[in-house]
């Protein structure tokens, strides 16, 4: 998936400069003109990084940063402050709020690229223009962990059949492995002795072969200090134990820019089937949202006229799911596509509890939905 950078600056000129600086990289630049717009955009789009101005009208950067850090779903988004205010007091104030870096205006574009590149995997467009890998393509995951039981757990926990997990126990073994074969993703346990995880991370980043390989940190859920330290070091993402494998798979897919649309969008006979997952979390709904327009457009291009939303495995209905379905139905209506819904009695009951979905009609099965057109 394409990385997203949100630039929050009241100056359109600065936003234009930011866009210009990243035009040769495979990133999408999102824009907001103040803290209020920035928070709304961040909640909606979950960017991979935020470039935040300090002095802005309506809501300034410091207030936005404070609110961002208080929001559980946004607090881990790395923030780089862009400011003309380089006074010691201001820098100390924003550093305490948990920024990853700051850039003093005026700034050169390459300084911006370099600082952003230390936090997210910036890749030139040419590298990503090739056909995107899908879930059917092989993916090599290297786990660096000195406890064989954890490696075993990850091996069995990952459900994508084409993904292979290989385990190593030390820095030396990791370097040897990467010399022979560069993995698609590396997961390093932060509990390796003598802070070896951080030394290894530095080694991997200084080697041209592994410089752009996404590196995840594996930490105990309650060890917030280790997680914060890993984040500051620039690990691509943090995985916490006990591991949520659905989350791990989503993070890996995102990190390696995998096209996961086949998980949710299936062209079957004369129907486009949109399958909602068991756990309709914000991240999975965002993942589906990113594919929604292109997939429905693709269906129209290929002459499909009927869409089935299959919600029957969803465990709980929530507002993000309702919003996704409302947006999807609106797109279908705009493109004059017919659609129907498949759900179970619990889903039907829960949907009645929301104003937007109280009148929706569900079918018991895919076959019943097909017959309804």
């Amino acid at each position, binding site marked *: 998936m394409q990385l997203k950078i949100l630039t929050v600056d*009241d*100056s*359109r*000129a*600065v936003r*234009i*400069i930011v866009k*210009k600086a990243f035009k040769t990289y495979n990133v999408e630049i999102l824009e907001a003109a103040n803290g209020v717009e920035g928070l709304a955009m961040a909640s909606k789009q979950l960017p991979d990084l935020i470039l935040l101005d300090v*002095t802005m*009208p309506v809501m300034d950067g410091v207030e936005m940063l404070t609110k961002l850090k208080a929001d559980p779903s946004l607090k881990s988004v790395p923030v780089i402050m862009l*400011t*003309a*205010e*380089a*006074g*010691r*007091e201001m820098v100390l104030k924003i550093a305490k709020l948990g920024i990853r870096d700051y850039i003093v*205006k*005026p*700034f*050169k574009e390459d300084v911006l690229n370099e600082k952003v590149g230390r936090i997210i995997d910036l890749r030139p467009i040419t590298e990503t223009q090739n056909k995107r890998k899908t879930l059917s393509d092989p993916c090599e995951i290297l786990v660096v962990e000195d406890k064989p039981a954890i490696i075993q757990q990850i091996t069995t926990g990952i459900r994508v059949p084409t993904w292979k997990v290989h385990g190593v126990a030390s820095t030396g073994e990791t370097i040897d492995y990467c010399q022979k074969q560069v993995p698609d993703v590396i997961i390093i346990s932060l509990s390796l002795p003598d802070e070896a995880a951080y030394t290894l991370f530095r080694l991997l980043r200084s080697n041209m072969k592994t410089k752009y390989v996404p590196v995840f940190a594996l930490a105990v859920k309650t060890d917030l200090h280790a997680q914060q330290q890993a984040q500051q070091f620039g690990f691509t993402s943090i995985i916490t134990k006990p591991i949520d494998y659905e989350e791990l798979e989503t993070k890996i897919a995102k990190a390696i820019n995998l096209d996961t649309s086949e998980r949710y969008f299936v062209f079957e006979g004369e129907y486009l089937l949109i399958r909602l997952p068991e756990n309709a979390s914000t991240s999975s709904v965002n993942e589906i949202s990113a594919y929604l327009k292109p997939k429905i457009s693709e269906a129209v291009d290929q002459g499909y006229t009927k869409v089935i939303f299959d919600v029957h495995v969803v465990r709980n209905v929530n507002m993000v799911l309702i919003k996704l379905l409302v947006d999807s139905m609106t797109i279908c209506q705009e493109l004059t596509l017919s659609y129907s819904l498949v759900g179970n009695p619990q889903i039907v009951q829960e949907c009645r509890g929301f104003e937007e979905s109280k009148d929706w009609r569900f079918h018991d099965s895919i076959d019943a939905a097909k017959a309804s057109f």
Partner: protein
Amino acid sequence: MEEISFPKVEVLEGLLVQSMQNVFATMLSKKIVFKARYGRDKAGIKPFYSLGSKDPLVVGSIGFVGEANGVVYIYMHQDVAFLIAAAMTGMEVAEVASEFDIVKDVVGEVSNMAIGSFKNGICDMGFNCRVTLPTVLRGSQMEVDSVQSAKRETFHFDFEGQPIVMDLFLQETLN
């Protein structure tokens, strides 16, 4: 406690000139040359109007408040503002000329960066202050006058053969 004396005008001149040159070199990859400084009682503080120019002007203004208080106006011909906006955004001059909002934004940002750096220098000397949001004006035959209590120093620059003037109004510590 030892009282810190406010920096002399020569020091302020060094800070302002360095700030302007740094902004132009970094954001535009272009040079701006400092020509001269004039005090309140000296000639040359009306570089455009008094020379009979009726070309439209663009003026960026930004204040700083705290233990040092003042305001700086940066004057330039509209055509110069177009050149700066084009260089900074990577757009064509004709493109920015048709969209004055971008020109206004760039002049505001140049003012913000230059005076932001200048203010940081003053803060480092022990006079804490912060900058206000920039304002940009457009018009012709205009100038800003000051109250007698404010110090006024005017700095002339040359940017690709065209004048850019910074007008600094300064009120020392208001404690």
